[in-house]
């Protein structure tokens, strides 16, 4: 058994596709129309055959209250690994991305939390190398 895909629930799939590709820098893998919505997945350019992130519509009535409660307490919906949190922070802020938590040194990891503009907070995380 392998983890081939995981999801974020987004309020607008096309807006999400733009943010996750143009702003964050992932690349489109699948974009298959399925009635009202589409099966849209993106992958990391560093691992195009790796785990796909599904940009899933948050149309279920329970989804939005759930997302709202997470955002209120600053809880990320999911997180991505980066090599350099500070560099990503600078790059993304320059692109207009809003962070609710700037890069923070938490000992073994450095983390930051950003707003994906689609109703989610996303954590980026850098594991510190061994000295």
């Amino acid at each position, binding site marked *: 058994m392998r983890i081939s895909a995981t999801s974020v629930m987004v309020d607008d799939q096309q807006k999400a596709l733009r943010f996750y590709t143009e702003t964050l820098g992932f690349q489109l893998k699948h974009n298959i129309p399925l009635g009202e919505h589409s099966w849209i997945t993106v992958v990391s350019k560093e691992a195009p055959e790796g785990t796909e992130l599904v940009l899933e519509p948050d149309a279920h009535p329970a989804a939005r209250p759930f997302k*709202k409660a997470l*955002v*209120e*307490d*600053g*809880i*990320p919906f999911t997180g991505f690994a980066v090599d350099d949190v500070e560099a990503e922070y600078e790059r993304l802020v320059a692109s207009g991305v*809003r962070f*609710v*938590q*700037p890069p*923070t040194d*938490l*000992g*073994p*990891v450095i*983390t930051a*939390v950003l*707003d994906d503009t689609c109703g989610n*907070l996303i954590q980026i995380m850098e594991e510190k190398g061994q000295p």
Partner: protein
Amino acid sequence: MDIYRAIADPTRRAILDELVDRSGQTLFELCARLIMKHGIGSSRQAISQHLDVLESAGLIRTRREGRSKLHWFEGAPLKGIGERWPISTDRDESQDQDASQDRDTSPDPHTSHSTDEDIEK
């Protein structure tokens, strides 16, 4: 809640330390800092209750930014302590050094951060 009771609990003092370190934190960021930097593994709900206590004592205030709720340290209520028991100005330097060591330094969260009987872990 009076401020003496509010700052009597080590977890609440650690919360204030972290809010002084960076203003405007979400509950998530505070919890991450408490577990990673202080070894305080209380539940989010317990930390939220500590925040309510501190807010009722006027030691933190909250504001919404976007859709997130952020927390700030508010030091003004502590001013009354210094006014009630003024710090004398004619003390020598060795006494000042003693005073500066009076801070939470215990590394063991089980003994130092679980004293408030009002709040579930």
